[in-house]
């Protein structure tokens, strides 16, 4: 046999042996786990470079990881963060099965490093947001890739959405929410609930969308829809829905891998679910303001029933902490009643008010008022009391300011087409005004509030002011809603509103006590 043929045969043999050893490797890895031959499980889904590094470095991995960790810590102490992402990448690559390493590095980026950056311009927290994203990506894209059944990673990921983005403890939280909503809108649509196009995409664009959601954001639309059906309906442009998604996925993984699930982790995941549901109830709806091009968050009142179920379920599942959860549940029910009232959904408000009374008949529902048992208060009294807790019921200035604030909300909601909310705010303003006058105004005329119509006129004039008021388009919409004449360059004189049940004439510049146009 010639030397060339021999070399060729050897090469073929080497290739064949390589392929066979690759096949044997799989069963060997399985045996390693089953027979308990190794503490660490073989690395799954790792790119070749990472797989090679982890094997080639052997026991030195820990040493190098420690050195990198020390460097990262030193640099952080010196406020040098530009290397942080790279060092975190290397450290986690060296210890890919050590969940705490992933969790720490992600937390460090999302919490400790992000806040080191200041506001770039008013309302612009892009530098902070970049680090929050880095933390999320580290867990979602890499941590879970190598540790798909590690519950603590799901727990941290869901917490980032619930706490870092969802809550308002970071000055940049509104910026984060806006960025996340902008990122999610192409997938979930302007209503935030577009599952059909993601699950059954028809067009090329929809297929691309579904693929990007799966590949980039690691969100399975089928599971997301299941979560939405179980706990929702949510607006999936908001972080709470994603907090619940990752927590629910963590709970599912825990069910499938009970060995990996620790009691504390499960408890935390359940807490994320019910706390995020409560958050979504409080501010889980996006209202676009077409005039300012901005968005506002409003309560997602449709969640009341599901959120209630989640609370009841959590109390049953976590008997040890059921007292704490029931206290949270009571607070939630009080909010449900108030928010429904505020949004003029009186029937539902009355239903939940009764439920609150039935469920917690012996517990007061107004803070600092020992007599405020549910049986002692009407729905109206309760709603007014909630407002007055915040403003202090004996302060003339603060009550005036609060009533004006409620009226401002009412007119702005009217301008942007939120008629129910507008009516709710107006009603609440009137109740607060009436309640104060009943208590203070009669006994102490010097402390009486201005007449309600005067307050309305003041607020309306302020909002319709061409220099300091709402944007032109919003003023026009408000005038249309109130059936006032269109704005002219000359000062408006008199407008008549005859259609509204509560309508009276309005004077913008003439000082009389006649009432301004009000909500239809």
């Amino acid at each position, binding site marked *: 046999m010639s030397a060339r043929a021999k070399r060729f045969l050897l090469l073929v043999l080497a290739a064949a042996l390589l392929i066979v050893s690759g096949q044997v490797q799989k069963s060997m890895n399985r045996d390693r786990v089953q027979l308990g031959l190794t503490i660490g499980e073989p690395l799954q889904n790792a790119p070749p470079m990472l797989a090679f590094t982890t094997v080639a470095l052997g026991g030195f991995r820990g040493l190098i990881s420690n050195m990198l960790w020390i460097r990262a810590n030193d640099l952080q102490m010196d406020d040098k*963060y530009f*290397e942080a992402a790279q060092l975190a990448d290397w450290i986690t690559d060296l210890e890919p099965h050590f969940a705490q390493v992933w969790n720490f590095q992600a937390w460090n980026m999302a919490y400790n490093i992000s806040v080191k950056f200041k506001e770039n311009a008013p309302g612009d927290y892009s530098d902070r947001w970049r680090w929050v994203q880095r933390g999320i990506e580290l867990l979602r894209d890499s941590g879970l890739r190598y540790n798909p059944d590690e519950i603590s990673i799901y727990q941290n990921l869901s917490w980032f959405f619930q706490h870092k983005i969802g809550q308002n403890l970071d000055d940049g939280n509104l910026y984060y929410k806006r960025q996340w909503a902008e990122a999610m809108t192409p997938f979930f649509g302007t209503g935030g609930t577009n599952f059909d196009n993601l699950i059954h995409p028809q067009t090329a664009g929809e297929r691309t969308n579904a693929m990007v959601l799966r590949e980039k954001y690691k969100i399975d639309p089928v599971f997301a829809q299941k979560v939405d059906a179980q706990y929702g309906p949510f607006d999936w442009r908001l972080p709470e829905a994603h907090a619940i998604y990752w927590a629910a996925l963590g709970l599912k993984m825990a069910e499938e891998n009970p060995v990996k699930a620790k009691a504390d982790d499960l408890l935390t995941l359940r807490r994320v679910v019910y706390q995020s549901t409560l958050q979504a109830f409080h501010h889980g709806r996006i209202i676009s303001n077409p005039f300012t091009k901005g968005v506002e968050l409003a309560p997602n009142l449709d969640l009341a029933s599901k959120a209630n179920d989640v609370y009841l379920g959590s109390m049953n599942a976590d008997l040890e902490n059921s007292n704490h959860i029931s206290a949270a549940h009571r607070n939630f029910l009080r909010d449900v009643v108030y928010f429904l009232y505020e949004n003029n959904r009186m029937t539902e408000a009355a239903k939940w008010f009764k439920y609150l009374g039935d469920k917690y008949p012996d517990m007061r529902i107004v803070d600092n008022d020992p007599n405020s048992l549910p049986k002692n208060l009407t729905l109206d009294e309760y709603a007014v009391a909630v407002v007055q807790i915040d403003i202090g019921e004996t302060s003339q200035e603060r009550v005036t300011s609060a009533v004006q604030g409620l009226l401002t909300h009412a007119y702005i909601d009217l301008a942007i087409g939120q008629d129910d909310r507008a009516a709710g705010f107006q009603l609440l303003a009137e109740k607060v005004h009436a309640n104060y006058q009943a208590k203070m105004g009669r006994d102490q005329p010097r402390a009486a509030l201005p007449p309600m119509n005067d307050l309305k006129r003041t607020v309306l004039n302020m909002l319709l002011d061409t220099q300091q008021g709402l944007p032109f388009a919003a003023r026009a919409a408000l005038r249309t809603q109130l059936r006032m004449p269109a704005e002219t360059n000359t000062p408006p004189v008199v407008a008549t509103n005859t259609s509204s049940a509560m309508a009276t004439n309005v004077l913008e510049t003439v000082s009389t006590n006649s009432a301004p146009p009000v909500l239809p």
Partner: protein
Amino acid sequence: MQRIIAIAWLTWKAALRFRLFLVIAVLLLAAVVGLPVMIKDDGTARGFTQILLTYTLSAITGLLGLSTLWLSCGTLARDIEECQIQVVATKPIARWQIWLGKWLGIVILNAALLAISGACVFGLLQWRAAHLPAAEQKILREQVLVARGLARPQSVDAQINAQTKQVLEERLKSSPDLAGSADLPEVEKQIREQVKAIYQIVPPGYSRQWRIDLSSQMNSLRDRPLQLRIKFNSAGGGTGRTFAGFWQVGDAQKMEPWQSESMSLSSDTFHEFQVPANLLDDKGVLAIAFLNPNDTSLLFPVEDGVEVLYPEGGFALNFARGLGIIFCWMALLAAIGLMAASFLTFPVAAFFSMAVLAVVLSSGTLADTVASGSVGVGNDEKGIPGHSPADMVLIPVFKGILVIVNLAKGFSPIDSLSGGLAITWGELGAAFGQIVLLLGGIIGIIGIVLFSRRELATAQGNQ
């Protein structure tokens, strides 16, 4: 001199013959070109440039440093071991000339390699910067690809020392027992911190003013905006808390000052923000005031709490000066390697040189030990210092090592370049004086003496 140059040329020829120059040049270029592809940055052009500068210059320093040690050990030790030196030494050339010639050859080789790789880094940075959007370019040119001078308020150390001394004397009068006590240094330290706090703290609802003298740059700073770099600490809140702050720059009695909006700032970190031009008063002093609207005190360290960064020069010259300091390090490493090879065999010399390098790199640990006052382990939680019988010997030795190491390590061109801070000609001159002339000179003299006294023919027996 001609003889020294002849030896230097021979060293060059050897480096070229063994393709050392080519290999190192390729490795350096691979590092410069390959690193940008491999590294993961923070997502900003500024961050990318900073990490690129740091990693490429560190890689160049590391590769060049190791090859310098290797080459300097090898070129002399192997010449001795392989008896080639006997051919040279029998020529009319002094031993010190051979030694200096080899050092000069290595140093010139380093200069060439540093120039090539430095030019590549510089070109890469400029090329990338030119392809960025205008806004990113602006940030880059203002904060990284620039040489910014740094000015601080006048030092208050003298006042702190005087007041500390005064308070301590009063304390000793009221508690005479303290004079002989072992706690005296700790008491003095605490008093100093209390006095220092007076100059640092801004209580809730109060403001503090700093004045920074920029009179020497007054003319060059006309119509040029400045950067304010601030840092504060706070006892209140966790790591995630941020604090509001209002800044006013410019003397309100002499001009219309610049006032910031409320800023959301975190503690324990540097924040940089731009302030408009022409806020210096007629004497070139910049008045800076901070109002603390928070419910907790904020502490601006006297060392680096409030600083002004001002444009001082271009990046190109700054970069060249930075490379100049790296070059000084290489010259020192060449001297260390040659000194080791002057009396040791090649492997031992290489090991010795690496050991010296390890000591230099672990100087942080030595500094920590010196600061704690003992090589023993104490209890930080209870405030009990460590103690060891070896302290009497080791601590002074560590102090001595640190003094020597800091002569070379006290310069940080890579940090300065990545932070956009100016490396002055004075700094470069100091680096040359301390690293090349002083340390390199001492090591060179030792190496020359050892080499001159060595019996070269005895190495023949090892072959």
